[in-house]
């Protein structure tokens, strides 16, 4: 494996291109710091390496937090740009993947919020005869409650808290910090989301019981 020494390279930018390839093969935190330093120095090959390594994960996190695939693609792209632009702030104290996850979550929440505001504006132009109905018209009572059905019924805030805690394993404190909501509000959103799930399951059980 190719090795190199910082001391023989007085200019941190020059020659980065030569060592990017060797850095990616070192799966340790120091290698990640150096790789991100190369990204921060606008080294195109380092940017490509980081983008290719993190893109699947970024897309997954964005996909979990967005309700539509198109929004998830937009959010993933914005998050990837943000990760590469913020490369200089990456420190050895955290893993690159976990750090990228946080940047992705922040960017995706921001994108989702913006998208929601935009849709709110568009809604003003929805013909009145579509109001106040907007829910899907037909749903078979025999249809089993799926996770997606539950997620589809949660409000944006509860949905985000639910996904961040139960899928992405963020603590309540971390969610409060990421979403800018007070701790109690985050807990309330998690509890209410769970209550909605419970209600849905009970309604399903009653319907099935009634059918039998």
């Amino acid at each position, binding site marked *: 494996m190719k090795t190199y020494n910082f001391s023989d390279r007085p200019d941190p930018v020059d020659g980065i291109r030569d060592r990017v390839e060797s850095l990616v093969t070192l799966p340790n935190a120091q290698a990640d710091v150096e790789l991100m330093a190369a990204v921060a120095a*606008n080294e*195109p090959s380092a*940017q*490509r390496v980081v*983008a*290719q390594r993190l*893109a*699947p994960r*970024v*897309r*997954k996190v964005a*996909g*979990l937090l967005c309700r539509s695939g198109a929004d998830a*693609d937009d959010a*993933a*792209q914005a998050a*990837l*740009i943000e990760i*590469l*632009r913020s490369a200089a702030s990456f420190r050895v104290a955290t893993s690159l993947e976990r750090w990228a996850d946080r940047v992705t979550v922040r960017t995706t929440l921001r994108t989702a919020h913006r998208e929601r505001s*935009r849709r709110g*504006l568009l809604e*003003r*132009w929805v*013909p*009145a*005869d579509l*109001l*106040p*109905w907007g*829910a*899907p*018209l*037909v*749903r*078979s*009572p025999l249809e089993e409650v799926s*996770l997606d059905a*539950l997620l589809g019924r949660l409000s944006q805030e509860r949905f985000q808290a*639910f*996904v961040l*805690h*139960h*899928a*992405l*394993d963020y603590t*309540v404190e971390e969610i409060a910090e990421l979403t*800018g909501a007070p701790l109690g509000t985050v*807990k309330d959103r*998690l*509890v209410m989301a*769970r*209550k909605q*799930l*419970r209600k849905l*399951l*009970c309604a399903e*059980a009653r*319907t099935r019981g*009634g059918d039998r």
Partner: protein
Amino acid sequence: MTGHDRRWDELQTRWAQGERLSAEDERARLAHAEHDAIARRELELFAEMRARGAAPGDPVAPALIGRALEALNGSPRLRLVTATSERAAQAPVSPGPRSRVPRLAVAALGLAVASAFILFFGASSRSRPTPPPVVRATMTPRLARAELVLAAGQVQVTGRRSGVGQNPLDQGESVTTGEGRACLTIDPGIDVCLAAHSAVQLASLAAASIRLRVERGTALATLSRRAPGSSFSLVTGDVSAVAHGTTYAVRREGDVTDVIVVEGIVEVTRGRDTRQLVDAHSRVVASLPSGTLVKTAVGRREEARLVALGAPRGLWSGAALGVLELTPAPPGALQATIDDEEPLPLPLQTLVGAGTHRVRWRESGGAESTVLTDIVAGETRRLTPPVAGSVATAVVAPIEKPSATSLLELARRELVRSRPRQALVLYEQLRTTYPTSAEARTVLVTMGKLELDLGRSQRALGRFEAYLRDGGTLVPEALAGKARALRALGRSADERRAIQQYLAMHPGGFEAPLFTKRLSELGGP
């Protein structure tokens, strides 16, 4: 629910909100699910959620990576091609009446030094190509955009007449009100509204620390949560009220400063030592001689008065905005309301969302006239009061005929504001103005639903039946509404027939499960 179920529900709620359960509680939580089908299903759904998070990353289209890299590297950079341009950028030196000899000597000396420098360093750097010199632009502090968005009555901006929708305000400029009101918006998400006889100066528009000096009167600030490291403050003399996302007002009368917090928390500081956090529905009074901050509660009436000051904010909350100008009228003789908001003095200039707005002029004698006007984004719409001081004119002022779409949009806005009665009036106006239009028919179902919500079941029934006479895409909703209206009227036999009709036509309809249950309750054939 049995005691056992309750215990499980409590444990599951605690677990779901992120609490770490003891080993014993965790065992109990999981054990219960083995005997309870619903609990088991709930745990399965949570496990599925966790599995989604733990799954490997999604396959990504190469185009996504390509676009991200392109966007990243496409950001503008300043790169100098020749050194001459760098010299050209310097300020030109004015020629003085000096001799040429010293200048020639200096130039010769400079050339000699440059030649020696090139000879010395040129040899050492010959091995690698010299990159073009990169000049990094110095970053000046980012300034927030501040703009006058409402001027009603007597309003001045640094001595000149107000100009809503014109140039943004500069740092150091002042906004002053006489018998009038004004609002300004500062990015991102700050609205500051001034009461009558008030003045504020834009002391700092640096995005990281926006500061407005309240010279006199009352300024109400409503702001969204600030980003970390950014702050907004209203200051008077040595009193500063810093907020990070709240609604609060600062009132200055002579040496007395009054900070009133409507929502959130505001940090009030005086000088270097005195600092106090003021929470919602509280006020802090700072008077100059005593130098102390006295905290008391705020009455509902005063709070309501402050909230009303910021009420017009909804007018310019959208993205597509135009300017609405209601031309001058004798001061105090007229007031105008836009979209049933608070009455505002004239003349009035305000940014409003594109679309149809209802402008109502009110003469001091009580006569009113209403005009519906369409605002186009980016354009100015000037309206003249139809009264011009004459009551008779006001009463017979012509009313513009709005389009069906405009009426629908106005009704939609009323619904968003939870004002079903006003929405019904607009729907009725649509049906009267455009009786043969498609909208006139489709709104019948919405009207029926609203009547039902208002407890007017007989009227609701009439709306639904009117729609069902000719049919349409909303027949399931109309049938469901009819059944509900009949139930509210206690006409069980008719209700049964309506439900049967619904179930026959839409067995998989959204309301089918509920109606099936209701039908069994009603009994009969």
